[in-house]
C-alpha cells in the first residue's frame, strides 16, 4: 500500500509540475489542481498509514492520527476556493489580453 500511495503522490505531483510549466492558462490551472490533489494525499500520509482503526485515542493500542485528516480538510477547502479564483482570473485574462498565453502574447512558433 505504501508503494501505491507513494506512486500516486509522485505521479500527481510530477504531472502537476509539468502542466504548471506550460505556456497556456488552461494547462496551468489543471497543473495547480493536480498539485493540490498530490499534496492532499501527501498530507493524509504524514500521519502514517493505518488501516481499519478509529481516528480517536480510545485506549486501543492502535489508532489513526486524526490531525492530518483535519489538515487535509482545511487544505481541500482552501484549494477549492483558489482553483475557482484562478479559473475566473484565467477567463478574465483571456478576455482582456485576447489570448490564453500566460504572458498574454501569442508568439510565433509557440504551440498551443
Amino acid at each position, binding site marked *: 500500500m505504501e508503494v501505491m500511495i507513494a506512486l500516486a503522490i509522485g505521479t500527481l505531483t510530477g504531472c502537476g509540475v509539468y502542466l504548471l510549466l506550460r505556456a497556456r492558462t488552461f494547462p496551468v490551472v489543471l497543473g495547480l489542481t493536480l498539485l493540490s490533489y498530490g499534496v492532499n494525499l501527501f498530507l493524509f500520509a*504524514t500521519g502514517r498509514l493505518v488501516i481499519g482503526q478509529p481516528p480517536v485515542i480510545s485506549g486501543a493500542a492502535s489508532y489513526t492520527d486524526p490531525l492530518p485528516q483535519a489538515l487535509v480538510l482545511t487544505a481541500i477547502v482552501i484549494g477549492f476556493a483558489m482553483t475557482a*479564483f484562478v479559473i475566473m482570473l484565467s477567463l478574465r485574462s483571456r478576455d482582456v489580453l485576447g489570448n490564453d498565453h500566460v504572458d498574454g502574447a501569442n508568439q510565433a512558433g509557440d504551440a498551443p
Partner: protein
Amino acid sequence: MTAHLAIAPILLPFIAGVLLLALGRLSLPVQRWLALISGLAQIGAAVALLLAVSGGDMLVYRLGDWPAPWGIVLVADRLAAWMVLITTLLALWALIYAGNGIDGQGRHFHVLFQMQLFGLAGAFLTGDLFNLFVFFEILLIASYGLALHGGGAQRTRAGLHYVVMNLAGSTVFLFAAGLIYAALGSLNLADLALKASQLAPDQLGLARAGGLLLLAVFALKAALLPLHLWLPAAYGGTSAPVAALFAIMTKLGIYAILRSHTLLFGEGAGSLAHLFDPWLMPLALTTIAIATLGVLAADNLGRLSGYLVLVSVGTLLAGIALGSQGIAAGLYYLPHSTFTAALLFLLADAIKRRRLQHGDTFTPDADMAHHALWGGLFFAAAVAVTGLPPLSGFVGKFLILRAAPGQPWVWTVILLAALLAVIALARAGSELFFNAAQVRADTPSLLPASQAAQAIASGRELLAVGGLLALILALTVFAGPAVDYAQATAQQLADPASYISAVLGGKP
C-alpha cells in the same frame, strides 16, 4: 482586557471587513470613514500590545482555552508586536491615499483591504505552523483581489503571474508542513522547537527536507533570488495604495524566515540547528546584486521602486544572517525600508497622475503642476531609500554594516548597491522634474482634462505622503528607543527557551 489583547489586532480588521461586506451598498465616503476608524483602532491595539510586551513578557492567547500543543495559540512577543505596529501604521496612510478615488475603481476595495490586514496580523501573531499557512492564504486571497483592483491589461497579466506563483508556493508550504509534521509530530512552533532537539536520527532527512522547503516558500514570499521575478511587475503594475500595503508582504516572508531561523532551527535544535545558515548570506547578497541591476535598468518609477523593495529585502536578510547584532540592526531597518518603499510607490502614482503624457516613465514631458513640491518630496524619499544621512536609512545601514566586521563582501555589496541606487534615482529625478520638454498643443493628453484637474486638487495624496515621511522622520529622531527595542527583540529571539516555556509551560 489585557487577556484578550493578543487577538485584538486580528479581530478588529476582521470585524470591520465583515461589517463593510454585510452592510453592502454603503456610499464610498462612509466606507472610507469605517475603514479609517478601524485603522485607528488597530493602531491603538497594536500600541497597547507593544507596551504590554515591551517589558519582555509574552502574551499567549489560547483559543478555546485548550492547552498549548493541542489547541491553537496566538503568541505576542516583541517581534510580533513590532511587526503588527508597522503593518497598522503603514495601512493607515495607504488607506488615506486610496481615498483619492482609487478605492472606487472596483468593488469591495475596503473589504479586501481589511481582510488583508486580518491575514497579516494573524500571520505575525500565530504560534502554529499550519495556522501560519491558513493566515497566509487569507492575506493572499485578499491580495489577489487587491492586486487586480481596477483591472487593465498589464495589471491582469502581472496579477496572473502573481497568483499562479503564490498558489504553487502554497502547495510547497503544505508539503513542507506535512514533512515537518511527519518527522516531528507537531505543528505548534514552540512544541516543534522542543521536539527538534530530541529528533530521532532516522527522521533527520525528512525534517531537513521540510525545513528547507519552508525556506523556499518564505523566500518566494520575500521575493528572494531566484524567486523574485514576479515582484517588480506585480508591484509596479498594481494601484499605488495596494503596492504600498504590499511593501509589508515581502517583510512577512523575512519575518517567517527570522522566526523559523531563530526558533525552530536555532542553537538548541540539536541536529537541525543552523539549517538555514549556509543559505541566508549568499541569497541576500545575490538578491541585492541582481536587484540593483534591475534598479539601473528600470524605465519607470513604479518598476524602479519594485526593484528597490528587492534591494531592501536582501539587505534585511543580510542583517539576519549576521547573527544577533545583525538581527537587531535589521529590525530597526525593517520599518524604515517598509515606509520608504510605500512612500516611493505613492509618489510614483502621484507623479504619474500629474505628468500628462508619459506618466512615471523616464521620458521628458511637459512641466508638471507644483513640480517643486513633488520634486522636493521625491528628493526626500530618494535620500531615505538610498540610506544617505540624515534619515533613518543611514542609521539602519550603518548598524547592519557595523554588525559585519571583517566581512568585505557584505560591505562591498551593500555600499555599491547604495551608490548605484543613488545614481539611478538621480537620473530618474532629473528626467522626471528637470528635463521638461515642450509639448505640442495638438498631442492628446493621456488623462481627460477633468481628471487631471481633479488629480492636482487632491490633498489626500499630500497627507498620505507627508504622513509616511513623518513616520520616517520619527524613526530617525527616536532612533535611540527604537534601536533599544530592536536589540531587546534580538535578545528575546536568541533565547527560544523563554518562548517555549511561555507557550507550553505553566499557567492556564
